[in-house]
């Protein structure tokens, strides 16, 4: 009889602990990505039927070959939260130019003045700015959609002859 009381008590405790928790589902593209919630590994995506307490939580999603994603989420006291994360791949890119005396800047962050540089860039659009003798001579957006090489050329003036 005592055994049944213990089971009932345990069930009640479990139910009480689950009350107020929010059902959590996490989908990722690509799948089979390790999902960490507040530093605890929830397993590989897709995550189903996990529970999370209302409040601020930090998600960390990492996969080799993809840009890591960190996401702070305030979980409201709702019935369920479904999160979709899309990881963006990182591609190996070479940037080459035969032109002399140019300085390149990408996304306002990375600068280089050598003729060949190897970069690892997140897939998508990147803003390229080109300087020559301290002046901006070109600005344009380049699209990185696969591992590849970019060759940069200056526009040559048409011959006046």
């Amino acid at each position, binding site marked *: 009889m005592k055994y049944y009381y213990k089971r009932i008590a345990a069930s009640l405790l479990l139910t009480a602990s689950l009350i107020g928790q929010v059902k959590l589902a996490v989908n990722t593209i690509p799948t089979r990505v390790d999902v960490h919630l507040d530093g605890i590994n929830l397993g590989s995506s897709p995550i189903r039927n996990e529970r999370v307490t209302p409040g601020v939580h930090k998600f960390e999603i990492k996969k080799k070959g993809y840009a890591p994603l960190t996401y702070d989420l305030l979980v409201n006291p709702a019935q369920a939260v479904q*999160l979709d994360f899309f990881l963006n791949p990182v591609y190996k890119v070479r940037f080459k130019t035969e032109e002399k005396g140019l300085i390149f800047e990408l996304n306002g962050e990375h600068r280089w003045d050598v003729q060949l540089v190897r970069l690892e860039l997140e897939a998508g659009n990147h803003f390229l700015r080109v300087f020559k003798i301290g002046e901006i001579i070109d600005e344009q957006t380049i699209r990185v959609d696969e591992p590849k090489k970019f060759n940069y050329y200056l526009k040559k003036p048409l011959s006046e002859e």
Partner: protein
Amino acid sequence: MRMNQRILVHLILTFEIILGFNPEPTYLVLNYFDRDLPAAEQALIDNFSNSTFEFDPSIHHMFENIDNHENPAASHMVTIKELGEKYQVNYILFNRIEHINDRFILNGLLFNTRSGGLIHRRKIDLKQYLNGQINELNMWVGNTVGRVEKNWEKNRESILFSDPEEINYEKTPRGAAIRSLAAPGWGQAYSGKKVSAGLWASTESSLSLAAIISFLNYDKAAKSFLKNSKLYDGTNDEKEVADYRAAAENDWNDHKKYSQLAIVFAAATGTGWIANSIHAWIVGPRPYTNIYQQWNTK
């Protein structure tokens, strides 16, 4: 809320709701976009037939960030209940699309009009892609009302960038190397390097031919040496002895010379063959993009 934000609110009422006889759950869909998404309205009309759209700016307080409230899930209870009664719906789906730099966030909130509480929330945070907002909006609305079309999922998959390990190229440096290993110059020709293809093919052909000729001469000299040695051993004639001896000595020298040449040419052929394959890999087809200066520098 920023002053320059453009607010678009659409009310979607299913046709059955208006007629008021459908026992299926009914939804009122409210959209809030921080940027003008003119195609979104038409996409929803097209994808969710039997729906009607209205514009109602009176519920502007729902545009505020729900997370700023002390009790986010219950912060709009009164409004939700009022809207539920006004439009006679079971659920209210509130979609907020906000753009932050090169990303957009779709925040989907599903409210129950009976309790007025938030019952389901979904956030999507992703890098912008062409018409991605509209596709994601369709998917979320369709997911909630149970009408997701396959092509939306395919569309999402197709616009996402590929896993670098899963990218298949029609022509690869490895393919070029293998071809050149099979036939010198083939890999270079496969990569479109016709001059180097011709050079490698002619060089390797010449070296191979030289090695074969050297070997044939070696073989001929060796056989001739054996023949002359036999004749030398079989005669006692003084003149013949001298002739066979001279011939055998010449054959011996030739056999040594052609043996060395055959080894040198064979080694050169083999080394060149491998070098040609490595060269094919180096100059093999790789994706590239030429960027030309866009600004006019006068």
